């Protein structure tokens, strides 16, 4: 199965100068685990902030989420893949880079995201179709 067919396109964006507290609020409200950070300046790339970043880099360190900017703890650049690649390619990329999500990009444009859960579900579908896992 191609990534472009299985990806999640409903992405949430946040400004780089927003606080981690704003990000937490957004993630809780939308029941999601990551936010895409808009480019800081023209020509700059997107970033991503995840619930893991919030917990490990801010809360566990005893820092105040209301004073830390999302851009300061974000992962940049995004790990991008071609939408024509397979879910297995995405699973391998995630394993090699120890990340929980990859982004499907067309140049500078983000088309969607494939998460660990998507990779897991795709694997189950492949198995059911009798394909190699």
């Amino acid at each position: 199965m191609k990534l472009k067919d299985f990806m999640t396109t409903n992405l949430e964006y946040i400004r780089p100068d927003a606080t981690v507290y704003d990000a937490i609020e957004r993630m809780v409200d939308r029941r999601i685990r990551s936010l895409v950070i808009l480019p800081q300046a023209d020509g700059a790339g997107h970033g991503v902030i995840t619930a893991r970043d919030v917990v490990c880099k801010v809360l566990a360190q005893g820092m105040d989420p209301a004073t830390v900017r999302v851009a300061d703890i974000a992962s940049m650049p995004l790990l991008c893949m071609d939408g024509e690649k397979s879910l297995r390619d995405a699973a391998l990329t995630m394993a090699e880079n120890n990340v929980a999500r990859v982004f499907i990009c067309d140049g500078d444009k983000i088309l969607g995201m494939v998460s660990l859960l998507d990779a897991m579900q795709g694997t189950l579908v492949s198995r059911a179709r009798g394909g190699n896992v």
Partner: protein
Amino acid sequence: MFKALFSHGKKERRTLENLRKHVKLLSSACDVLRRALETEDRGLAVTVIDMEREGDAIRREIMANIHEGAFLPYLRPNLYRFAEIIDEVFDLVEDAARYYEDLELHETLREDCRRIAVLSSEMSEMLCLTFETMLEGGDLREKTLALRIYEKKVDDIKFELLRKLKGVQVKDFWEGKTLSDFVDSLVRVSDVIEDASDALDIIHVSMG
């Protein structure tokens, strides 16, 4: 158990062969709808409409076979119910194709509609595999899980699509209605395929 029960008698074999044809034809119809959306070839709608008619004839034959006494009485309603649900999916695919024939899909909706058509087509293929597995007496668990995963994916896209739909400008009431009816038919295909999978599960359980 399945093979033993299903391989008896001419009527049973004919019914099963028709059910198989019905599901395979549905899968082909979903594939044609997918191609229509991918290539923006509205002419393919005619093929889908023809397939729906053929599917209707097969369903009537299944009904006649069952009416003539194919299978034990307790199995008949479930088998017929399955054929009815497949017919319901055919109607939705046909409706989607007919509405698409008259539509110029807005740019913001095209990709989501294409993805739903791709996932629905793959779902219908999976339904074929599930049906064959049931006939062979195999375990349906992996197949039905895959069908639920597909349906969940379509559901996720559906809400995003409905949100985008609200922002689309239409010329008049009829264009808006056609667009709304098209999206409604397209997103319901996967829902009803999932119902067909549940019906197969009931047949499977009732044979156990």
